[in-house]
């Protein structure tokens, strides 16, 4: 059972990182960015390319991997900003349906664009950049050191984001736009710039999650963003979409629930997605604002 908890918490960290980006974008411009899961996948792909294309990286070991992680975050962040500028910004005053459809289109462009360049086969992460095996026993389970490191990195990113949103001028601008875009403009907030920044941060976090996913699981593919994006959204809804802590809490909850489901199905993982999405529908029915969301249900 301890093992289930550890597995769940680890999975939850990955979900939470992706859910954060989802939730930030939704909280600020009320857009479900369907392409978000694909940015996660894109991050893993470009990190893979950097790791294999640059000669001599291997000798730098773990330092190189972290360098690549940071570089990928910048690149995916840039991709997010680009997508926003090309596809979402011109439609900001258009009906919501147009925006959603554009987001679905962007998701397709990313998925099948990546398929074009990287192929449709599952890609194996370079062995040396995968996480080592050493493990520490905890009660009746074990946790690998790699997991601990990755969990620490994701928690650090989340805490850092928390400080950024709550403690800086830019973060305050973001919260202001989330409350009232027009009023923030009047108060001198550069709305376009702040929204771009939100896309940058959200996408960078998704990219980081992608690299970590590759480092840990060792295999990536062009469609992996679809299901994970959907799960991350579920996590965001469970925690309370638009709420940063909600995204983290939702991610961890979903990760735990999923591993527990597998545990109770005696290791058969074919029903875990059904349980997750069933939970999504249940939450939207009973408590659409999520665990931590505010109590105002917007109707439209």
């Amino acid at each position, binding site marked *: 059972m301890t093992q289930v908890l550890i597995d769940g918490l680890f999975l939850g960290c990955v979900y939470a990182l992706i859910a954060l980006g989802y939730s930030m974008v939704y909280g600020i411009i009320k857009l479900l960015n369907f392409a978000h899961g694909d940015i996660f996948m894109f991050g893993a792909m470009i990190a893979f390319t950097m790791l294999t294309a640059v000669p001599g990286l291997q000798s730098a070991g773990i330092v190189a991997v972290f360098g690549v992680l940071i570089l990928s975050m910048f690149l995916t962040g840039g991709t997010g900003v680009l997508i926003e500028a090309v596809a979402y910004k011109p439609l900001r005053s258009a009906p919501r*349906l147009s925006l959603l459809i*554009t987001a*679905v289109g*962007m998701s*397709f462009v990313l998925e099948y664009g990546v398929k074009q360049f990287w192929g449709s086969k599952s890609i194996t992460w370079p062995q040396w950049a995968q996480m080592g095996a050493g493990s520490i026993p905890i009660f009746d389970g074990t946790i690998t050191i790699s997991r601990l490191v990755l969990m620490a990195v994701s928690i650090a990113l989340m805490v850092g984001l928390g400080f950024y949103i709550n403690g800086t001028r830019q973060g305050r601008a973001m919260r202001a736009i989330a409350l009232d875009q027009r009023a923030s403009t009047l108060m001198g907030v550069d709305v376009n710039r702040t929204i771009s920044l939100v896309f940058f941060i959200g996408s960078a976090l998704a990219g980081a999650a992608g690299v970590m996913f590759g480092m840990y699981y060792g295999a990536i593919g062009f469609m992996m963003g679809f299901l994970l994006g959907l799960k991350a959204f579920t996590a965001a809804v469970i925690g309370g979409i638009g709420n940063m802590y909600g995204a983290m809490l939702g991610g961890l909850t979903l990760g735990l629930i999923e591993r527990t489901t597998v545990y109770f199905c005696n290791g058969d993982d074919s029903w875990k997605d059904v349980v997750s*999405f*069933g939970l999504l529908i249940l939450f*939207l029915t009973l408590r659409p604002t999520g665990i931590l969301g505010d109590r105002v249900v*917007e109707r439209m």
Partner: protein
Amino acid sequence: MASATIAPALKQPAWTNDRNVLRVLAIVFVVFVYVLPLIDDSTKTMDFMTKAMIYVFLGMGLNVVVGYAGLLDLGYIAFYAIGAYTCGILTQAFHIPQWAAVPGVVVACIIAGIIIGGPTLRLRSDYLAIVTLGFGEIIRVTARNLTIDAPDGSPMVRGPSGMANIEQWSFGGWSFTDGLNIGGMFIREQVIFYYFVTTIALVLGVFGISRLANGRLGRAWKAVRDDEDAAEAMGINTYTTKITAYIIGAVWAGLAGQLSATQQLSIAPTSFEFLFSALILMAVVIGGMGSTPGVVLGAMFVSLVPNLLRNYEWAENRYLYFGILLVVVMLFRPKGFWPATDILPWSSEKIHKWLTARKAAKAGKDLIATEEDTYE
């Protein structure tokens, strides 16, 4: 004063604004699809044309949800799967003819529509998008893992292998497989099936839905789509209106699923992927949301492209181009290829506007508001 505000007549050929043009085009299309088997009744052509007509039927169903009611459904194929499985299970478990399973399919889709639409349609419309996406995945995974035995103990639904030996349509003692002899001309099963699907798609899909859209309910859908608060103020029950649209869409998809199951005579769970839902959505969006000719063309386009593209690589990468097309259409032509308000594509509203503006400028009056205020 008031007389100056009358819009000037269009300076484009009068026939482009004539509803009869649309009628003529519709008749040409109908004649074409009915005459086609006389020209080419090869198995290949019949196969992909039947499929194209099923897409048209599906597209018209999704058009109700997305085009008229303005609800984004990303898991539309879930209902298609429910329809296919329901008809398969009913006909095999109870040994009833295919037509007798139709009410079962309809009821199953209505129930599924209420389960999914009921709670989520009360929320913001973008939640529906994601819930339907999740629902689509639930149905896909369930279909892959489902195993049911027939009452006599033989395997019926076999998990990843789906269902086999779906019954062909039969009426009384006559089944499609027997073929038909008319005046010495023998009509094969496939051709009969093509005519059957085409008739259903045209009558129930195209004609039925476009009639529905012009009626009281259809106008309510459009009103809710354009401004929910205003619609509510006008006495429309927005929730009932939306859920009706959603259920009608579900039933149409279920019937399409039944048709598709009887076309292939088997059901494969791998065909219920998100891609399929997205493809139908593309047909509706690219063709023109809420536009009957647009959706018919869009569905034909989306289904025939892989068959028409000789270049294999292009057909393989079509989703990339479809994705780009989706974004480009939304950015530059949000009403789609054939906007619902136009008689013909590019029968140009814009020319109209430009002419009005020029006339107004000549008269020295600013008759048209150039800027639309956007309030949130």
